[in-house]
């Protein structure tokens, strides 16, 4: 049994690491695609990652992944050795992306416990074919990169009295430029420095360069130089040449690919990504740590507010107690912050989607990411990805116009999708913004009218309220979706997912300018804003987000139907009342509706009113799950430990609607 569990642990680790690496890989390849592979570093990076995946997957006996990664490794090994070789970059990118997809699918299967293994052989063949083509290609005449090939050193001396040694040397350099790169020579200044001829006469002319050509042919080539008295050409040890700044400068200048300014930044961000000092910790351990800290806070209160200390003069005790409180608070904050992860990985995943869609739909799209350093609870990160993907797809598909249209309207031909995250109080706001055509208010209104969604006078509706109609289920599945200016596909699903996280979604749009979809989610699922209510002697917690309003009523407000169902009319609408003390079978003295408190909760457009004895407090609580012994509890989402150490059950209000 212990073997099995450690096996599981390794598998979990493998899945985690490989997914992480696959994500990194995707990011690297997309970044370097943007710069047309201008950064040679990516070859090393990809080689390294492929090697790691190969190693770990063969260790786990996932042979198919190991084989596949091995074949990719071969390609990159070749590229690494043959630096500067020209190759079909787009094809390589596609291949690597296909490999990433394959690995991801396999890993997902693994996670789901699916034993069926995919067959990578076709992909492997393609990769091998690519490698063969690479190897058969004649060596590129001129490498693009300032990379080390074979380092050579040539020393010329010219025939005495031939004059103009510096000009002749310059000629050699000029000739050599076709065959070699990273050329350095001594003396460095040939034309401008009058003494250079003198130096060459005295010490000879030394050239350090790199070339793919073999020694012999280079020798023959250089030998042809007129007035050469002697020529020594030798291969140098790699260590001799140091790629110092002048050389790299040279390399960048000779590079033919135009560089997009961004590419300068990307290698840096990549580096910092791979060098971050991070350890991965099992979330269960963090939960346990949080439990312990929570327990300590309670224990601290029990000590410092111990009734036996009352009425005692304890100045230094109180001072020490304050210090303790300060430290425990800090500790609590720190433990909370451990669960927080940067949203950047989630954001960067979308680069791929944007790229793929941009190609598929033939629309120029760039993804701009703002505030990727924003931190969000791990659980939320895991669950925000799908809704975001939906929104981004919608934005590209329906929001952005084609290049011609954009041009006509005087916009940049390439559309921009902005993904922005920022902190706002105890919430994180994530905005998906496009600079497309925006929402058509009139059409939405028309559609809402047709579907009978408008219950208020239209003149009273704010823009936001109108846009909010797009979140209604079935609103978009109308036949004219494609003509209809925007959004729609599955917006109700997005809303549901976000609401399940305790968040909210709103829309801002300017016709012709673009659309903002703003998602507001709580920082953490582990802590919620809760209203503590009392029923009998027991305390319960209701998530503040689920309560629309709470109020007291008079006996006259209540209607009772013949089946003894109680109802209440609020603003012309009739809502059923559920007495929590009856539902939970808790004895209480407060049984008259006007003595207690009514809380209005909404779910999916329906409203019910919950009746409790009284509202005690509003506070942030740490959500804990009920013991697994209880399976799924109807009406209860979990529990929390209150400041005095007692347990309060957290209501799951949507359960009361069924």
């Amino acid at each position, binding site marked *: 049994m*212990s073997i099995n569990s450690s096996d599981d642990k390794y598998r979990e680790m493998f899945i985690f690491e490989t997914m992480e690496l696959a994500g990194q890989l995707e990011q690297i390849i997309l970044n370097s695609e943007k710069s047309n592979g201008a950064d040679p570093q990516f070859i090393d990076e990809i080689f390294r990652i492929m090697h790691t995946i190969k190693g770990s997957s063969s260790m786990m006996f996932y042979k198919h992944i190991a084989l596949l990664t091995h074949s990719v490794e071969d390609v990159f090994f070749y590229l690494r050795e043959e630096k500067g070789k020209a190759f079909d970059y787009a094809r390589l990118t596609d291949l690597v992306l296909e490999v990433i997809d394959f690995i991801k699918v396999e890993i997902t299967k693994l996670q789901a416990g699916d034993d069926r293994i995919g067959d990578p052989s076709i992909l492997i063949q393609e990769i091998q074919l690519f490698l063969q083509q690479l190897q058969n290609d004649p060596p590129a005449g001129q490498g693009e990169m300032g990379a080390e090939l074979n380092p050579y050193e040539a020393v010329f001396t010219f025939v005495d009295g031939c004059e103009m040694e510096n000009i002749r040397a310059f000629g050699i350099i000029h000739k050599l430029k076709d065959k070699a790169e990273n050329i350095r020579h001594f003396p460095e200044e040939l034309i401008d420095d009058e003494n250079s001829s003198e130096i060459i006469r005295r010490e000879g002319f030394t050239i350090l360069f790199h070339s793919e050509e073999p020694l012999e042919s280079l020798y023959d080539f250089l030998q042809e130089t007129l007035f050469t008295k002697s020529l020594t050409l030798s291969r140098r040890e790699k260590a001799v040449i140091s790629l110092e700044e002048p050389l790299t400068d040279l390399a960048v200048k000779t590079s033919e690919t135009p560089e997009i300014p961004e590419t300068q930044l990307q290698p840096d961000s990549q580096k910092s990504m791979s060098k971050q000092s991070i350890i991965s910790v099992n979330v269960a351990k963090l939960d346990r740590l949080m439990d*312990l800290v929570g327990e300590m806070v309670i224990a601290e209160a029990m000590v410092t507010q111990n009734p036996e200390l009352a009425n005692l003069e304890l100045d230094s005790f109180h001072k020490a107690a304050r210090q303790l409180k300060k430290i425990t608070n800090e500790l609590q904050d720190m433990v909370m912050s451990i669960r927080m992860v940067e949203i950047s990985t989630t954001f960067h995943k979308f680069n791929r989607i944007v790229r793929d869609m941009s190609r598929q739909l033939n629309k120029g799209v760039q993804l701009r990411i703002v505030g990727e350093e924003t931190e969000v609870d791990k659980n939320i990160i895991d669950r925000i990805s799908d809704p975001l993907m939906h929104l981004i797809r919608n934005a590209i598909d329906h929001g952005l116009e084609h290049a011609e249209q954009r041009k006509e309207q005087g916009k940049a031909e390439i559309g921009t999708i902005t993904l922005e995250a920022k902190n706002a109080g105890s919430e994180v706001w994530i905005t998906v913004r496009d600079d497309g055509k925006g929402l058509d208010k009139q059409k939405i209104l028309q559609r809402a009218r047709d579907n009978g969604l408008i219950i208020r006078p239209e003149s009273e509706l704010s823009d936001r309220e109108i846009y909010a109609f797009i979140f209604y289920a079935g609103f978009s599945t109308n036949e004219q979706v494609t003509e209809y200016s925007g959004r729609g596909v599955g917006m109700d699903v997005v809303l549901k997912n976000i609401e399940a996280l305790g968040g909210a979604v709103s829309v801002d749009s300017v016709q012709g300018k673009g659309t903002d979809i703003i998602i507001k989610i709580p920082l953490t699922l582990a802590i919620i804003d809760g209203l503590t209510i009392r029923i009998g002697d*027991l305390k319960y917690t209701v998530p503040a987000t689920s309560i629309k309003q709470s109020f007291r009523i008079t006996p006259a407000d209540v209607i009772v139907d013949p089946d003894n169902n109680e109802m209440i009319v609020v603003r012309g609408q009739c809502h059923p009342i559920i007495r929590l003390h009856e539902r939970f*079978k808790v004895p209480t003295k407060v049984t008259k509706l006007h003595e207690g408190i009514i809380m209005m909760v909404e779910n999916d457009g329906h409203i019910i009113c919950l009746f409790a004895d009284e509202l005690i407090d509003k506070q942030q609580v740490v959500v804990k799950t009920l013991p697994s012994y209880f399976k799924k509890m109807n009406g209860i989402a979990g*529990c929390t430990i209150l400041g005095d150490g007692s347990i309060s059950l957290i209501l799951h209000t949507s359960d009361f609607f069924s």
Partner: protein
Amino acid sequence: MSEAKSEVFEEEDTLQGKFLTFPLGAEDYGIEIKFVTEIVGIQAITPIPSIPEYIKGIINLRGKIIPVMDVRLRFKKEPRAYNDRTCIIVIDIKEVTIGLIVDSVSEVISIPDENIIEPPYVNKNVHNKFIESIAKINHAVKLILDCDKLLNEEDLEELEPLL
């Protein structure tokens, strides 16, 4: 890893044949000590709606929320008011942690295997259902609880149709 394994075996060895005993009504009961993680005094119990009567609710055990079961009620005996001798025996079975509320605990004893006998088969007796075996010690008899059955599946199903 082999090291860790042998450690586990050693630990199991030392726990082998040891039982925590507690009186309940006229009988003495025993629980294999390997299931027991700790014994705590009675503390505030938060009731949970719509669960069997013998599950009293949940307690906060140093930040860990665990359910507690009144063994008297489980055995369909007369309930008794809790006092400062009332104990909660926290047991861990198949990754489920649960507290057993008992009147008090007596001691930990070693019972050699030869002193443990199968319980007699009567019929589908409710009492026998939870008894794994019977141990004889100096003319006294201890009933060894089958912890697994104490919180077995068929009873868990009773918990499902809540509300």
